[in-house]
């Protein structure tokens, strides 16, 4: 149990906000599941937590104008990434895929015709989130698109998610070493610095896996064999 002066710790605040959110809104079952589990406490060991590493591929960076075209996520339990529970889907969409994003993620409009309807894909994601701390590299994007979906679909305000952002954690490391702002924080570059393997292909799930591995490496870099107190980790700057 964390000491009482941690009352104003962002995690504690987040926990209170979430309780409130769940009380105030009549949540659809999938979202209720995603938000039902308590948020880890400040002193909990991150290495023992369950995570869900997540990546969204979108048509652009603006949640109000762009669309989710693919989701990939996989759980990390007790420090083990479980490929058997990995999930990836393309989202069915009539919207045109912009040529400039197709270049990046190799998703072309023809592939999306046979994809999963967005509601179905999001419900599956919400159920998978239950009880897990979310992980992404540059979580603002994922969070922005998920909240945009909540607003459009249910008229709900932004939900109090619990994110760990590998990008923010990495930045906190390098700020430490006095080289901020101009660094290269792209997922592939950061992984290279941590001696993680290079993944040839690009996609939502492989990026989610890449972020999950990076998180494990970062937890070790920060805490070595000591418990990784989650309250000491920088979180996504977006709630």
């Amino acid at each position: 149990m964390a000491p009482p002066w941690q009352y104003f710790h962002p995690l504690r605040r987040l926990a209170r906000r979430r309780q409130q959110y769940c009380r105030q809104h009549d949540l659809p079952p999938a979202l209720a599941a995603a938000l039902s589990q308590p948020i880890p406490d400040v002193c909990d060991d991150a290495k023992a937590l369950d995570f869900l590493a997540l990546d969204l591929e979108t048509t652009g960076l603006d949640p109000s104008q762009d669309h989710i075209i693919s989701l990939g996520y996989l759980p990390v339990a007790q420090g083990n990434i479980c490929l058997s529970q990995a999930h990836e889907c393309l989202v069915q969409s009539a919207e045109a895929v912009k040529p400039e994003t197709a270049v990046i993620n190799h998703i072309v409009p023809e592939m999306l015709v046979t994809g999963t309807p967005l509601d179905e894909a999001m419900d599956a994601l919400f159920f998978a989130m239950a009880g897990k701390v979310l992980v992404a590299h540059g979580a603002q994007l994922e969070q922005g698109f998920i909240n945009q979906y909540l607003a459009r679909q249910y008229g709900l305000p932004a939900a109090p998610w619990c994110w760990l952002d590998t990008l923010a954690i990495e930045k906190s490391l390098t700020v430490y070493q006095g080289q901020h702002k101009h660094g290269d924080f792209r997922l592939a570059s950061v992984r290279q610095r941590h001696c993680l393997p290079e993944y040839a292909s690009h996609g939502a799930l492989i990026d989610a896996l890449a972020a999950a591995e990076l998180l494990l490496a970062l937890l070790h870099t920060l805490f070595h064999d000591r418990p990784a107190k989650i309250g000491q980790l920088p979180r996504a700057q977006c709630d």
Partner: protein
Amino acid sequence: MPQTLIPNIHHFIGQVDPFDKLPDELQRQIACAIKITYLGKGEQVHFGGAVDARYLYVIRTGSMEQRNPDGGLRAKLGPEDIFGFTFLDPGKEDHQDYIATAIENTLLYLVPHEELQRLLEQYPKFSEHFAANAQVRLHSALDVQWSDGEKGVFVKKVAEVASKRVAVVDADTSIQQTADEMRRICRTSCAVIKQDGVIVGLVTDRDMTKRVVAQGIDIQLPISSIMTVEPLTIGPDDLVLQASVVMMQHNVRSLPVVEDNEVLGILTTTHLVKNNRMQAMFLIERIKYSETAQELAQLAPERQAIFEALVEGGVSAEVIGHVMTMIMDAYSRRLLQMAERKLGPAPCEFAWMVAGSHARNEVHLLSDQDCAIVLPDDASESDRQYFLHLAHWVCNGLAACGYPLCPGKFMAANPKWCQPKQVWLAYYSKWVASPEYDKLLNISVFLETRCIYGNEALVSVLHQHLLDEIAASSRFLPSLVRDSVTVNPPLGIFNYLVLEKGGAHSNTLNIKKYAITLLVDLARIYGLSAQCHQDGTEARFRFAHEQGLLSEEMLKNVLGAYGFISQVRFKHQLTALKAGKTADNHITPDQFGSFERKHLKDAFRIINDLQEVAKIRFTKD
């Protein structure tokens, strides 16, 4: 597994031995079951005791080391290396064999054992690759090399090559009827003769010429009067190579293919020489009919061609050694005959005795000459001078044929090794009585001997004398053991370096010194201790097992290790030959893929285990 992971995880798994042996679909299913974890430098793997928490571990990036419970280094492992087989053994409860620690930050793939077993049930033929037992894995490694690539006719089965046309006649059929059957009905060069359903003889068209026509025999006589009695036969599943070895050894040109007393066909030299490489197998015949040392020397490239074909065919080390030995025997015998013709007939009996690997039937392309002469005790000094001349001539002749002179001068041309029986008996008595550590190396070559020319009795007396002396000595075998175990096999290959037992590295592997010789030594120790009359390394181990000196488990382990290491050595020599270089025993570890690294590690460990066992068995007090 979703699409985007396939090219990444699956591709990686697909290049790691033994996963690379599995069908694509199975690789994919295994990749889907993988868990990935990250170990920071200094962190240990927690080997779960529970069955559902057992894994095979594959290093994706980073490196790890294994240490025995006493802290001794067991192995260092890098990317693509696998560990955890030992813990898959259902007999191992939560007993820890070793500790595995990350020595760099390491990304580790965990393949759940339960899932692996479930998947392998659908593909039983691949399950050997994942056995907990090193020897089973080594065995499967040999099998794999066996089935790889183009095999050539050597390693085909007899049934695939032999003619199915063969005449079978009763013993009381007349010679003429038999010839008619062969010629008209079956159009074959051979007839198998049966009596009461049992094979009793063989007749070939050559026999008809030599034994019937040339000698004017009555063609109405029964065929049994001129047939070759109790002919050699070969089974349909035997290798063509074995058949050709039998043909050469016994100088026959036809072998009936027989199974359960049923004649299935006939294998003749004609079937074999259709293939160019097989013609090389008849090198021995050409050696026999060479008239000059120069002619013999010109055959050397063929000897190399045979070696290459054998290694490429994935033929077992034992057979390769045997074939190469037969060729060396043929060279030696032919040169001895030529020498006798040149110097005049030998003034008295003698035995030409070969030693070392030549005696063990383990000749390979790098083998040098180890030979000696044993004379009867009444041989005079001038007789001895004759034999020294003879030996000089033969040894130089062998050198011209590509068998290097022995750097230790263990050759019959050295007066010390051209001696009457009495002197040889005294040599052996002295060696066994005072096995000084530093002299053992020098005489170990004569612990294996074989007569290839002359009076065999002169050599067998020496061998029996050696065994008797050893049985009566309490110091000799312990000295051999102490001498041999001063050299230990390396732990494995890590980062393109050979990792030695103390943790030091070197950048080449001397596979002879650090593996082959150690096994040959151990086989000698076990063989001599069990009074084994055979000198072959594998034969000695088998005999020691039959005598209860080696457990079945250890026997299989050791034979597997020997087979694998010999194969690695031969392949290395082959690669050098093909690149136009001189073959040697020094292998640079960057030539090893994950397959070799893994199995070499197993083999080294087995050698080390046997050294430990031998120390306890032979050197206590």
